Each structure stands twice: as structure tokens, then as C-alpha cells.
């Protein structure tokens, strides 16, 4: 999900007015900001949002050129791989496994704080994670930790019901006692 809805959510997160967001004739997402400036493309839109925002997340995403580059790398990853891949059963499995591996040694995608990269992937992968059974989630404990961490932030959750990760806990405990 790297579309109109995702842009709106991320704009809310950053505390920036969304402006007018829609798909153009080529199905590319575009945004017309308050100053009537038109930008097209998901990554470019996020960049413009970050520039307008004064939030911590926006600041952390632009703290240095290196961080900025890494953040855009992950946004591209979200657009090109996560969003389409999460609809395919086999690709999504690989996707979850890859991300889970990544989060073994990292708390966030870039640096040591929440950035736009986390937001972009979070919203792109939301539906996929939502569809997982507790058994499935058990295989992705590190990814679950990251996801749960983000969804607990009210500005990220934005009124969506919290996905349940606590059963992982119970499940762990239960299998433990059965052995």
C-alpha cells in the first residue's frame, strides 16, 4: 500500500496538511500542497512532506545526507517490493523472513530512531501483517517487535485497532509447557 491512503497517513504522522492527493492518468500518486505545488511519485511526495514537517520523525529522517539516502532507499524498497510483493503468497513469505532477519540486529530501518523508512514500510506491510495468524507471527518475532513498537504510537496507529501480538507471548509459553 503505497498509494493515496498511505500518503495521507504519513502526512498525519508528520503533522503536515495532506493537501490534495490523487492518482493521475498514469496511476501515479500526486500531491498538490498548500502552495499549489504539484509533486508526483510516492518517494518525492514523502520528501516534500518531510521538508514541511517539524516533527521528530521528519528531523530524524533528514539528519544527514547519509541517513537521507538510506531512508529513500527503504522507501523505494517499500514501493517496488513490499507493496506489490505483499500480495503474492510466496513473495510475501520471503519478504517477512527478510525483514525479520533484518530486525535481529536493528531496532529501526535507518539509524537508531523512527524515520520515514519505518513509516513507509509499516503502512506498506500493514495488511499483510494483519492477515497473519498467531502461528505465522511466531516465525517473525523480530519483525513483530518492530511492528508492535510502531503501532503503539498513537500518531502512527491513527485510530486503527491494535493488531494483537500478545498471543505470541501466550503461545510461546504454552508450547514451552507442553514440551
Amino acid at each position, binding site marked *: 500500500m503505497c498509494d493515496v491512503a498511505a500518503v495521507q497517513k504519513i502526512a498525519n504522522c508528520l503533522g503536515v496538511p495532506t493537501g490534495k492527493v490523487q492518482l493521475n492518468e498514469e496511476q501515479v500518486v500526486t500531491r498538490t500542497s498548500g502552495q499549489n505545488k504539484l509533486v508526483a511519485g510516492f518517494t518525492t511526495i514523502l520528501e516534500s512532506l518531510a521538508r514541511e514537517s517539524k516533527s521528530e520523525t521528519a528531523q530524524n529522517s533528514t539528519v544527514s545526507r547519509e541517513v537521507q539516502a538510506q531512508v529513500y532507499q527503504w522507501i523505494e524498497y517499500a514501493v517496488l517490493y513490499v507493496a506489490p510483493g505483499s500480495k503474492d503468497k510466496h513473495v510475501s513469505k520471503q519478504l517477512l523472513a527478510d525483514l525479520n532477519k533484518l530486525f535481529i540486529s536493528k531496532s529501526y530501518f535507518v539509524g537508531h530512531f523512527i524515520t520515514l523508512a519505518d513509516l513507509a514500510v509499516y503502512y506498506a506491510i500493514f495488511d499483510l501483517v494483519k492477515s497473519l495468524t498467531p502461528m505465522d507471527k511466531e516465525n517473525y518475532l523480530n519483525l513483530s517487535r518492530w511492528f508492535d513498537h510502531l503501532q*503503539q504510537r498513537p500518531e502512527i496507529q491513527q485510530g486503527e485497532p491494535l493488531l494483537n501480538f500478545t498471543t505470541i*507471548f501466550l503461545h510461546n509459553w504454552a508450547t514451552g509447557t507442553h514440551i
Partner: protein
Amino acid sequence: MSTGTLYTYPENFRAYKALIAAQYSGAKVKVAENFKFGETNKSAEFLKKFPSGKVPAFETAEGKCLSESNAIAYFLASEQLRGGKCPFVQSQVQQWISFADNEIVPVSCAWVFPLLGILPQQKNTTAKQDAEVVLQQLNKKLLDATYLAGERITLADIVVFCSLLHLYEHVLEPSVRKPYGNVNRWFVTILNQPQVQAVVKDFKLCEKALVFDPKKYAEFQAKLGGGANKQAQQPKQKEEKKPKAAAKKADEPEDLDAADEALAMEPKSKDPFDAMPKGTFNFDDFKRCYSNEEEAKSIPYFFEKFDPENYSIWYGEYKYSQELSKVFMSCNLITGMFQRLDKMRKQAFASVCLFGEDNNSTISGVWVWRGQDLAFTLSPDWQIDYEVYEWKKLDAKSEETKKLVTQYFSWAGTDKEGRKFNQGKIFK
């Protein structure tokens, strides 16, 4: 916004808690200049404000005084650090602060302080295992939690982080910390927060664990002057090569908690050889020569330097050679004995050889140590193996001894029954 002065010595992990908390809240904290540990905090003026005389201690701009690092950190913290508005998260913060003080700090001190030379080496210590249990608990917690309390960094993270600093700096080398991947991830995340970086400068994760160095401990004890006139000794340390490190070492016993104080009170394990005159023979020099030079050089060197007044040469023969079977098992017997005699190493040297082959072999060796009597009786630690050997003192001046020493030091010849030399082990 709080402002005030923090009294501490440099690189005090307890003071870090307060300084990091201040970074988050923007509290203006000045670290007292010219603070001399053992002097400033023992002065009448200081004791009047802080009766315990312990650091870190904090004085607000209005002259209100606060001691105990966790309290100071709480005072200086932002709302987020205190756990936000939710009482449950606030309690979780307290829970982890207590965990740090009760579970982490004691095991960390018990493990790391002997290696820094602050405490004597403990026999049969379980410090490492205890620390592993604590790390295991943390690792489990951090598998599904990004931070310890709530979804933001709190004092819980800062206090636990600070309490783990010694472990991550000195003993958790990559192979040791590998099983605690979640703790490592969390630790690195906290370490790299800009607010933490501003306080904990140039921190490097342990590359190679410290090992116990009796010399360091001896030096440290010498500096303390038996502990009685610690304060008087303190200023001299400033002239040392590494004043920072020295001061740090000297300071820490002061803030040991009760458990460690009890540990420190235990009789120090003294080197039993200390009672004997030192003589002129230097084991280190000889061992270096023996390791680096050909026997043709090192054996004459041995006889040239050997001091028969204060040192003695012994011949030890395994009593139950008929029970020896596989060669490798016999070799393990020898190296096992060497390991159990570890504390003797500094004042002894031996070459123990195995002659013969599987199911037909003997073990015998030439030993040299300080003193004229059988050294093994000096310490209960050394009496595990010596009784299975027949010990004979050798006359250092006789030709026969020279021959025997030469044979054993150069790993050559045969045993009495003509079995050929098979393997040798050196105790040095």
C-alpha cells in the same frame, strides 16, 4: 527547568544516568570542576550537604541536595523518561531500575572488578554464570520489546544501559555476547541515541575480554596502601601515566554496594611464596629465554642464573604408571595438573615428560620452584595431584642433576626402563 551541580569522578557509570537524563530534559547540569575523589567528597563542607560522602551527588541551583544516582536521574529526567503519564509504565520504569541495581550491578561488579584489579580474584566464582542468567532474562524481554518500558526510551533503558556498560566494555567479547542478540540490538540502539552519545563518549564494545592479572591487583592494593590511608594516597595517582584510568579504578571500591563490600572483606588470597626470600633467580627471564632460545643456550643460562639458596630443583615421578593407558589421556593428566596449579606458575617451572607408548608408559618431570621445601603443601589448592607423584629433591650442584635437567628441559632420552621420550609438557 532544573539546574545544578553534579559531583562525580570522570566516567562514573552512575553519574552517566543523571547526565543522560539531563540531555533528554534539557536540564542544565554542571559537573563540579576540580572534584578530587577522596578529597572533595570527604571534606566537611561536602559531608554537611551529603552525609554519605558518596558520589554522584547533586546540588540544585537553590542549594537543595540530592544523593543516590537513580534519584538524581529521576529529578533531572523529562516526563517521557519518567514513564509518561501512565502509572503502569511509570511503575515499569521503577521495576527496571530496581532490576538494574539488584540483579545487574552486583554480578557485573563481581565479574569485572577482579579483572580491573579492584577486587582479588575469587575462587569458584559464579559471577559469569550469574551474569549470563541476567542477560538471558533481558534477552527474552527484548525479543518482543523495543524498549524496556512502554514504546519510548525511559529511565528504565538508561539505568539498565548504564549498569551494563562495564560488562559491554570489558568482558562481553563478540563470542560471549552472541547469544544475547536482542540485548545487543537494544544496547546499540540506546548507545547511539544522540543524547547518550553526548555523555558516553568514544564507547567501544568489547573486542577481547579482560583476563585476571594478579599484577594489576597487586599494584592496586599497593596504591591503596592497605586501604587505611586511601585518601592520602589519592593525589599521587594524578602523576601516574594514565591518571584517568587509575582514578577510576581507585574510585570504584568506594561505591560498591553491600554485596561487593562483603566480597571485598573476604581474606585476600595471598601468594604463599611471598613468605620466602626472593633470591636472585628470575623465573620470567628464564622462561623467556627458554621459550625463545635453543636449549643449547637456555639450559646453560638456567645453571648460570640459578640461585640454589632460595630455589630448589625436584624430580617428580608418577606413582601408578602401570595404570596409564592411552598417551593422550596421560597428557591430559599432566596438563590438568598444570591447570590446577595455576597460581604456582609465577614462582615455578617444570618440564614433565611422557615416555613410552599406549599401555606402556611412564610420567616424570623436573620441577623448579621458589623455596627449599615441597611447594604443594603451601596451599590447599595445590594438593590435588601431588600425592600421586614420588618427589625427590635434587642436589643443584651435582653433575647428575645437570644431566637430568638437561634431558628433561630438552625433551630427550629415555626413562629408567629405557622407554623412549614421547611427549613433553612445560609448566611456565
